[in-house]
């Protein structure tokens, strides 16, 4: 019953075509993101014909209607009823929160993503700030099972939850003008992957070649809310390498990669 009380959902029209559905305090981010993700699918299931889009947020759903299909009072009440009904049903049936977090809406297992933990970016700096060695940082980071909260900010940029408290760092004081495509980065409570080159203020730990968004595919974004991701080092992490030595090795690795991709 405590779950029911906590899942407070406020639905209101914020523009003449958009309903804002705010989800109140819940126990943890993972389950809230999942609940919001599933509520989105549930709304689509029941009223798809009226909808132009449903944008999931960290704490809300933005339901955009096709103007000619709007019936203000009926739609407000239907969305409210569907959301509350779904939230109640899910909290009643899944008392075990752990099972919810591993199921995912994508019905997929864990996706393992290779990361090149090069020295070009913030890895050493982050390791110092967390008072960890570089190898320990990589090992601990690769042990985390991340959950996809949502795509946002740019096409295919995924926000991942599951970062332990000790990894929480504020954003860079001065954002980088150029974050490379595939950058695996952390900021505050989140981990994220940049799908394309852009400015950004997150701490970059490494770079992956995993494709996050491809407009030519039938489903362009690779991940949906609830998918589970775990990173692994592309190359075995060598424990004792001085920065001078890696500086010599790093260009070799990148140049050989370029040659092979061409």
């Amino acid at each position, binding site marked *: 019953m405590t779950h029911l009380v906590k899942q407070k959902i406020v639905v209101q029209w914020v*523009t003449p075509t958009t309903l804002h559905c705010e989800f109140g305090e819940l126990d943890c981010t993972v389950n809230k993101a999942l609940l919001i993700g599933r509520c989105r699918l549930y709304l689509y299931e029941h009223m798809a014909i009226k909808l132009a889009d449903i944008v999931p947020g960290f704490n809300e759903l933005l339901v955009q209607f096709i103007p000619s299909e709007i019936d203000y009072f009926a739609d407000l009440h239907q969305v409210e009823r569907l959301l509350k009904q779904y939230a109640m049903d899910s909290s009643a049936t899944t008392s075990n929160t752990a099972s919810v977090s591993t199921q995912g809406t994508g019905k997929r297992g864990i996706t393992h993503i290779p990361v090149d933990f090069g020295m070009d970016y913030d890895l050493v700096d982050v390791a110092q700030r967390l008072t960890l060695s570089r190898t320990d940082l990589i090992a601990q980071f690769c042990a985390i099972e991340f959950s996809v909260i949502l795509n*946002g900010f740019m096409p295919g940029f995924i926000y991942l939850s599951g970062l332990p408290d000790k990894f929480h760092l504020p954003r860079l004081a001065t954002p980088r003008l150029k974050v490379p495509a595939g950058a695996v980065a952390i900021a505050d409570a989140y981990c994220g992957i940049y799908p394309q080159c852009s400015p950004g203020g997150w701490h970059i730990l490494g770079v992956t070649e995993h494709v996050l968004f491809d407009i030519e595919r039938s489903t362009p974004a690779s991940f949906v809310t609830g998918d589970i991701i775990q990173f692994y080092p592309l190359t075995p992490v060598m424990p004792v390498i001085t920065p001078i030595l890696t500086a010599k090795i790093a260009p070799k690795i990148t140049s050989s990669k370029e040659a092979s991709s061409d």
Partner: protein
Amino acid sequence: MIECTLTQYPIFIIDGGRRHAGASGVSESGPMDRTAFRLANQLLHQDVYTSALEVMGECRFVAHTSMSIAITGGNATITLATTLNNTLSTCSYKPDQVINLIAGDKFSIGRLQQGMRLVVGIAGGIDVPLFFDSRCGIMREKFGGLGQGKPILSGDRFAIGCYQPVSHEGEMPSDYSNQSSEYQPIISPSTGIAGVTEIDFVPNYQHAQFSLYARYLFTSQLMQVSQQSNRMGLRIHSNQAIPSIVKHESQALALGVVQIPPNGQPIVMGPDRQTHGGYPVIGTVPEYALDKLVQLTPNESFTFVPVNIEMAIAKYWMNLR
């Protein structure tokens, strides 16, 4: 086929915007001035979501096939140069009417005398690929538009689509050119302080968390749209900064949300906004008011006027009629 021979600013392909794109992190996009966009298509008697062009300044085109166009949204001189029987004749048109072109005709749009952007409706729309049910393109997203998200620049050629009139009465589009007199340009100063436009906004999102003083400053001073505005967002200049609040988590952004960043200068989010943003939001500018705001030049002043959502909905439907 139509060719843009010269343009001062990039020209954007617009339509009703993307559908079901937000969950992939893809922007909604769409027209800046939706009233003008709908009108252009209504004049051509076709579906109101048919793709059109959004023009911000002087530009010249050559029509390589016969076509009908309608230009709306502001005031500029439209010149048409036709060569018939080896004689060149030019005539000028006003906006808000249908102009019929034959192959080889050259038409140019002069500097905008009123407003900031025009919509060039084309019978049949523009024939470029659809992504997320839309032909809009955004450079940073690298898809849509003329390809790779590109807008139309000088020298670009593009195909026009198949004209499908909505009417069943067999009328030619040109018959509608006389019927546009009912249209009231939306860029008209309203009541309140003389010469100052009032822009409606609906207080929502984090409005209640802003201090009384911040809310007072937001509605009590004259503001201007900054020159640094674009399709992503309109940067607003206010003399006195609006004290912002601390908000950590990003949130999904509706069209027209007013973000207050730490520097206290509001940003009204446009059609090409990112799906999520981290700045606190004081309210939303409804579509009909946004259509007015996007047409204000940097030296025109306006004030934000709070309206409740019921009023905004009523005005929205009045504007649609």
